[in-house]
């Protein structure tokens, strides 16, 4: 029987290598074909998971502990579907975007392919060391993508990103070393059964190191310093990939570790502390977004703020009743998906506006409302999710989180979420207001090809419709 599981890793590896062999700037058509197949594979696998429950594949017939196991459950399946689903429209967008910016696309396709292969491998890995390797592959490809334009700004942003991410993975690997020293295993299921409430101090230290390293990689406040220059300075398709998907990969790992591996030793105090950092991210990221003068920097700071919401999940699920935990868990995962779709749409729309006007500043987009109505509409639709207004996916996510905070009596998170929602409305309307001003005489509007506008619209529409089809997604999440 045909098994789609390993092909989700092999297929992007193959097309990335072929694109590299074809030479600089080539391989867009291959990538689109490969990604279309990946979407089909992910859909097939999701179907199998819904009907048959979680799956484990011993690669080459070598099972754990000697071999490397691939495993997929509800959570990793949701992440796999999100990754392929966001990457395919972005590939169409990128082909069109780079046709107009020939210089900066040199190795975009091979790097994107390796990035996606690493990300799919990360979601499918079932041992902590293999996860370390996929994390590093992911970071190296992402750093390469940030450095693509080649100017002093992007290269120093890439360098800063590389150093931050290497520090994060080194801390993670030290945690893995401590875990192996105590239990003599790196397999996630084996470790999960060994870690108990009476685990030695070294295990708590390992947990702290691994989680801190991953928070640095997820750009949780106050470790967010590397994100805005890296995401705001990269070409628009790269920003979209990084903000929508790459930071979610390390957040997925935090969920895995917190809920599967270290569940017996997590404490309410630690959860409240992480939640406090999340609250800081929501407020500080939104305030800084409001102060930006460049369009893509505003969107990048909005990512810093939205990452904060993800971390509110931890205090709402630690030391609370089963009902509250279930609701918060669903809300957190919905927020991952909704933000992934909406942020990809926002960066794609911002890139289209910047291409049309030739200016990076927010002040330069005056008149976009009359000249690029579809792009502005996509940006506004995506903003509905970012602000958390009904009926968007962001609304469903924040509603579930708010409900969990109310039910568990943690009113302080409600204050943060409401304040964050208002602040995000403020920075979104700063952009929309400018777009409705009359066209600046100095601006020379270029006519955009359709493929630079439609992918953003489809992604934004998906983020909006997610609110109405959330139950399908939650069904998949609970399949395991």
């Amino acid at each position, binding site marked *: 029987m045909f098994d789609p599981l390993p092909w989700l890793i092999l297929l992007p590896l193959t097309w990335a290598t072929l694109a590299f062999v074809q030479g600089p700037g080539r391989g867009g058509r291959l990538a689109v074909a490969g990604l279309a197949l990946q979407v089909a594979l992910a859909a097939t696998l999701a179907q199998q998971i819904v009907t048959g429950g979680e799956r484990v594949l011993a690669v080459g017939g070598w099972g754990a502990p000697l071999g490397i196991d691939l495993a997929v459950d509800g959570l990793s399946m949701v992440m796999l579907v999100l990754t392929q689903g966001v990457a395919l429209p972005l590939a169409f967008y990128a082909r069109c975007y780079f046709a107009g910016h020939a210089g900066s696309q040199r190795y975009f396709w091979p790097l994107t392919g390796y990035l996606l292969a690493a990300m799919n491998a990360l979601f499918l890995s079932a041992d902590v060391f293999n996860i370390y390797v996929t994390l590093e592959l992911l970071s190296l490809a992402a750093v390469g993508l940030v450095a693509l*334009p080649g100017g002093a700004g992007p290269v120093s942003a890439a360098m800063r990103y590389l150093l931050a991410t290497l520090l994060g993975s080194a801390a993670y690997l030290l945690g893995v070393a401590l875990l192996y020293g105590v239990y003599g295993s790196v397999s996630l299921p084996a470790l999960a059964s060994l870690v108990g409430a009476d685990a030695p101090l070294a295990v708590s230290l390992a947990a702290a190191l691994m989680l801190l390293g991953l928070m640095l990689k997820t750009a949780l406040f106050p470790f967010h310093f590397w994100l805005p220059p890296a995401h705001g300075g990269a070409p628009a398709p790269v920003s979209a990939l990084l903000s929508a998907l790459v930071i979610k990969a390390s957040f997925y790992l935090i969920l895995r570790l917190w809920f599967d591996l270290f569940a017996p030793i997590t404490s309410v105090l630690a959860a409240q502390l992480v939640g406090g950092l999340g609250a800081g991210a929501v407020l500080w990221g939104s305030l800084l977004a409001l102060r930006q003068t460049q369009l893509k920097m505003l969107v990048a700071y909005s990512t810093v703020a939205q990452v904060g919401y993800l971390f509110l999940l931890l205090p709402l699920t630690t030391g609370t009743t089963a009902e509250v935990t279930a609701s918060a868990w669903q809300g957190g995962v919905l927020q991952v998906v909704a933000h992934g779709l909406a942020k990809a749409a926002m960066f794609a729309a911002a890139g289209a506006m910047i291409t049309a006007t030739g200016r990076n500043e927010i002040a330069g987009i005056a008149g976009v409302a009359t000249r690029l109505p579809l792009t502005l509409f996509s940006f506004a639709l995506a903003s509905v999710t970012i602000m958390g207004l009904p009926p968007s996916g962001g609304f469903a996510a924040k509603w579930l989180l708010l409900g969990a905070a109310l039910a568990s009596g943690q009113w302080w998170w409600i204050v943060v979420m409401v304040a964050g929602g208002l602040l995000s409305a403020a920075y979104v309307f700063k952009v929309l207001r400018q777009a409705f001003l009359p066209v600046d005489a100095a601006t020379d509007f270029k006519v955009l090809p359709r493929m630079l506008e439609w992918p953003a619209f489809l992604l934004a529409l998906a983020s909006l419709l997610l609110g109405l089809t959330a139950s399908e997604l939650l069904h998949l999440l609970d399949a395991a």
Partner: protein
Amino acid sequence: MSAALLYALAGVALFVIGVAALILQAHLLRKILAFNVMGSGVFLVLVGFGQRSGVPDPVPQAMVLTGIVVALAATALALALARRLLDLNGEMRLPEEEIVRDRLDV
């Protein structure tokens, strides 16, 4: 104290030295070296702490080999970026105030 534990503690010390240097040193070459010191510290912990009753365990050794390959690739990328920054800015350090523009046609 067994020799294995001594290795592990030395590894932790190296890791801490590496982290401190990575954050405190401004020169990029020193930062890259600091990352390598940090990596060696982790590998020492992996091999030293991973021993069972004094007998070397082959699994962490295989992991260290993989880790060395990863660290080599990361170092190569970091050096290439640092070299590029030297060409662009004339010095091997990160600019203090980040000026990022979305360059359309670089």
